[in-house]
Each structure stands twice: as structure tokens, then as C-alpha cells.
């Protein structure tokens, strides 16, 4: 396969990682925690979408909306049950709690949903572009013919819509502006009369909606299993940190960097080692934390 094809795949991967990473980074910036259970929110969204697609007669968008609503509700319930009560204990206990919650959720999903992968039936059209020269360099074709499916287009278009919606939310609505203020300086926000708990709850709902969407897009694109979200959590986290933890715009850039690196490393690695491409995301993560811990646009995470 040519590099151009891998880039398409990278763009698709980057798109759903970006949607999830926005939610993840908003939680980091406003609740001040790394939510390691976030991958499970994606899985839940994917399963809700799968069930909705099978149970409801409606078209695919109905399943997508069901996943988003389900994700938002799940997120706020889990936050109220597990994270809000320990908000004051600091980042490490909250991270550990999310790790514990993640293990419990993942296995609960496995218990209910079983181990096998499920597929959401969609009608797919494929658009082929074969007439492009390959320009081989070694074993890799620099261009080459490629195809793009309607699913790819749905994922990328959804991401673009999400970016626009989140941008409008953060810049044009009171809640969004309050979110940004809180991300910058929580005590200052409180002094200004912002109801910080309300904003935190809104962020949980928003993050859950985004997770539900990302999850169901993954499900449409590939499949649903108990590990759907967990297998992406480190990529989401890498994207968020790469973009500067707490910055939604940075997270978008970070996500596409991760997506493209994964795709390109798949192209260049020998086929027996494609499993390594996911490790590449972590290598990038570590490299970023070492070289510029504040990411592309974000705050310092080192201690004095």
C-alpha cells in the first residue's frame, strides 16, 4: 500500500482520537485529573451505539446520537459517584481511582458483552483513486493509488463538525467561557462568581458525549469489543499531552500527529512488527514529556 493510503488511515484515526482527546483534555484542565477510565467511556458509547443500531429501526445517525446521549449520562453519573466526592484529594488519588474504576468497568462490560467483537452493519461505498503514480522508495511507495470509504468520510466529517461545535461552545457560550476561565485559574473563576461545580458537571457531560461519539465512530469504522476504548486510551492521552494537557485545540493537533505517526510507522515497519506501531504513540508521549513537558500549548507539569 502506498503512503498516501496510510495517510488517509492516519487522518481517520487522528479524527476519532481527536474527538476523544478533546473530552479527555477538558477533564484534565478543569477537573485537574488524568481520567484513565476514559477509554471505557468510549467502549460504553460504542456498545450503546451497537445496541441502538440493532434495536432501533432508524438510520445510523440515530445510533450515533444514542451513543452520545448515553455517553453523557454515563459520564456524569460516574463523576458524581466516583470523582466529585474526592475532588479535593489531588491528582494522584484521582488518577488511581480512575484506574480502579476503569478495571471494574472494562470487566463489567466484558462480563455483559462477552469477549467477541461485534460489528455495526453499515452500507459502505468505496471511492477509488488508482491512477496516481507510486514513486517507490525502497519498499515504500511515496504516493500510490488509494481508496476512501464513506465510513472514512463520516468519521472525518464528524470530527470537523465537533471541532467547530466545541470552538463555538468555548468562545460563544457562557458555560464555555466559564470553562476556559476555570481551566486558566480556578480560584480566580470562583472569585468571579462562577459556579465551579456546575462547570465541572458540564465538562463531565461534554466529555462523555464526545467519548460516546468517538466510541461509536470507532465501532462503525472497525468493531466493538470490551477493549475498544482501553486499547486507545494511551493514544488519547498522548494526543492530549502532546497538545499541552488542558488545551482542546492542542489536543486536536496532537491527535492528528499521533494518527499520522501511527499510519506512517505502519508503512515503514516490516509487516511482522506492525504491533509496534501502537508503541510509537507512547514513544512520542515520553519524548514530549521529556523535551517539552508543557506540550504544544499548555501548562508546566514539572515540579520545581
Amino acid at each position, binding site marked *: 500500500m502506498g503512503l498516501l493510503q496510510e495517510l488517509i488511515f492516519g487522518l481517520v484515526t487522528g479524527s476519532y482520537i481527536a474527538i476523544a482527546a478533546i473530552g479527555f483534555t477538558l477533564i484534565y484542565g478543569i477537573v485537574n485529573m488524568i481520567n484513565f477510565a476514559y477509554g471505557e467511556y468510549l467502549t460504553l458509547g460504542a456498545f450503546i451505539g451497537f445496541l441502538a443500531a440493532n434495536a432501533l429501526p432508524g438510520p445510523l445517525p440515530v445510533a450515533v446520537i444514542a451513543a452520545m446521549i448515553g455517553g453523557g449520562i454515563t459520564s456524569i453519573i460516574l463523576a458524581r459517584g466516583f470523582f466529585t466526592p474526592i475532588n479535593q484529594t489531588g491528582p494522584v488519588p484521582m488518577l488511581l481511582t480512575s484506574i480502579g474504576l476503569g478495571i471494574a468497568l472494562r470487566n463489567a462490560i466484558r462480563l455483559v458483552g462477552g469477549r467477541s467483537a461485534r460489528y455495526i452493519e453499515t452500507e459502505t461505498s468505496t471511492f477509488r483513486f488508482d491512477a496516481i503514480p507510486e514513486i517507490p522508495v525502497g519498499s515504500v511507495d511515496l504516493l500510490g493509488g488509494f481508496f476512501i470509504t464513506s465510513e472514512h468520510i463520516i468519521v472525518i466529517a464528524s470530527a470537523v463538525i465537533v471541532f467547530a461545535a466545541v470552538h463555538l461552545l468555548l468562545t460563544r457560550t457562557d458555560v464555555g467561557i466559564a470553562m476556559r476561565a476555570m481551566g486558566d485559574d480556578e480560584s480566580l473563576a470562583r472569585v468571579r462568581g462562577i459556579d465551579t461545580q456546575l462547570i465541572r458537571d458540564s465538562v463531565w457531560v461534554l466529555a462523555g458525549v464526545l467519548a460516546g461519539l468517538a466510541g461509536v465512530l470507532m465501532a462503525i469504522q472497525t468493531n466493538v469489543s470490551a477493549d475498544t476504548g482501553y486499547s486507545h486510551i494511551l493514544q488519547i492521552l498522548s494526543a492530549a499531552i502532546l497538545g499541552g494537557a488542558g488545551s482542546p485545540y492542542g489536543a486536536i493537533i496532537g491527535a492528528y500527529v499521533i494518527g499520522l505517526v501511527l499510519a506512517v510507522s505502519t508503512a515503514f515497519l516490516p509487516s511482522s512488527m506492525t504491533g509496534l506501531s501502537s508503541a510509537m504513540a507512547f514513544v512520542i508521549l515520553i519524548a514530549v514529556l521529556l523535551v517539552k513537558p508543557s506540550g504544544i500549548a499548555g501548562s508546566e507539569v514539572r515540579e*520545581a
Partner: protein
Amino acid sequence: MNVRDRLPSGHGDRALIAGVVCILVGALFALTPLRVQLPSAFYVFVEVGILFVIYGMLVLGLDLQYGHTGLVNFGHVVFFAVGAYATAMLSAQDSFAGIALAYPWPLGLVAGVIAAAILGAAVSLTSIRLRGDFLAIVTLATAEIFHSLFVNFEDIFGGNVGILGVPRPIAAVVSDGDTRLAATLLVLGGITLLTLAAVTRLTDAPYGRVLRAIRADELVTRSVGKSTITYKTQSFVYGAALAGLAGGLFALYNGAVAPGFFTIQVTVTVWIGMLLGGAANHRAVLAGLAIIMGLRLISRFALDVTPVSSDVFASMRLIVVGLILVAVIRYRPAGIWGDPQELGVDQ
């Protein structure tokens, strides 16, 4: 913990003596015709017991890092794994896949400890300044990277099969199964007790005072003239080296290593054991680990009498494990035996 004010440490010395005795008795079984017979219902206890003493070294090292120094290492399994793989690859006679160099096993064990320590030094040199939750992420990511290296580089690490044909020094001299299990438990348990003695001495000494001061307030500790980076690095490397030792011993007991033995579950188990028992208290973390591994034992028995598949049962056990972690942090942040004021969680 005013016991620390008395310098000669009671617990540490008792652990030292008990450790030496255990190893000697274990050696007695191994090297003389002396035999034991275990009731067959006992096997499972001994097997879990062996795993417990190996994980005991992990939890003691982790507690040195987190409980005493405040370093959040959530990739502890990687040091365990690196120690195990280094030992296995150097000492394996011949393996189905991967490297098998057939050197004498003591050399392999030493190499395992050194390899884990070097990785620990590399991680701490690069990341020790990161804020707690980010250090957790870097260590966790390191563990994931190594896991995928082990799986993907079949020619070196044997892929999913791992490294086979690792010598089993105790099995080599004791042919009788019961005696072999007993001797293994005694020798490994003795080594864990020696580890306990060593870390107790370290933390009872002024050395431990510096570590706890770093956990409390690093800047203050620096401003009274302590080079905190040096101490943090040492604490991290010692914890990693102990995990490497545990890994090497595991390889030499198990006779094989494979990625399946070194999943994030290991990290989670020792973390929960430490938090449940009470961080910064060596005996408490071992007790906490015993509780969590006891749960594993119970679930093994329960599995025999309940009509569900082992998959279902594994999921249920992990749900419980995850919720225990959540509950401990929320309702008992200092663990069962930890001191809330010493851990700064009494507000």
C-alpha cells in the same frame, strides 16, 4: 512511628534472622535427602504463597518509591519483566524462540537485577522531575512499550511464547515435587524477608528521613541541604532493582517467561496491596498484598464450586479488585494499618 527513634530496629533484625533461617531450612531440604510431604489440598496454598513472596519484593520496592519517597510508579511490572527476561535470556539452555545464551544462572540473575536497575536509572534520569500523575503515565507507557517489544521481537524475546528452557536451580537438585515446592517457598520467602530487613534498615536510618521529607515537601528538603534528585533517583533505582531481582527469581522458579506473566495486572495487584495495607509501612504493605492475593486464592476455590466459566469468573474478580482500589482511596486513604497523619491524608 516513634519506633524509628530507637536506632536498633527490632522488626528489621527479626526479619533478617528469620530470612536467614528460612533460606537455611530451604537449603537443607534442597541439598539433603530430607523430604516433606504436603497434603494435596495444600499445593494451591504453596503455589500462591510462592507468588506472594515474589510479589512481596515488588511491593517493598514500590513502597520505597511511593510510600516513602512519593514517586508514583505505575509501570512497576516493567522492571519485574526486564529482570525476568534478562535472567531468562542469559541462562536459558535452549528456547523455542528468542535468545538463549546458556550462561550459568547466577550470572543471569545478576544481569537481571542490573538490567532492571539500568532501566530504572534511565526512567528516573529523564522523568523524575515530572509531577506525580505524569510520572505515573510515563512509567505506565514505558511498561506498555516494553510489553509490545517482548511480543513483537520474536527473534529476541520469543514473542507470545516467550523464553523457554530457563534453568530451575531448585528443581534441578530436588526431584521430589512436594519437597521442591516447600524448598522453593522457603528460599524465596527467605529472600523476601532479607529484602524486608534491608528496606527497614534503610528507612529507619536518617536515609529514610530524607526520603519522607522529600515526599512531604521537596523544596524544604532541598533548602536544608539535601540533594533531593539524588535521593529520588536512588529510591527509584533501588525499587527497580528489587523488582528485577523478583523477576529473575520468578524466571528461575517458573522455568519460562512470557508476556502474559507481565501485564498491567501485576502493577495493579501490588499497588492495591500497598494502598490497602498502608503505604510507608513495610509490614503493612506485605499484609495488604497478602489480603489481595488471598482473594485470588478464594476465587480459585470458589471457581471450583460455582457453575460459571473461568472467563466470567476472572472478570468478576477484576471488577472486585478495581472497586477495592476505588474504595480504599476513598474510605481508607491510609490503608488498614497506615498512619493517616504520616501519609498526610487525615483532612
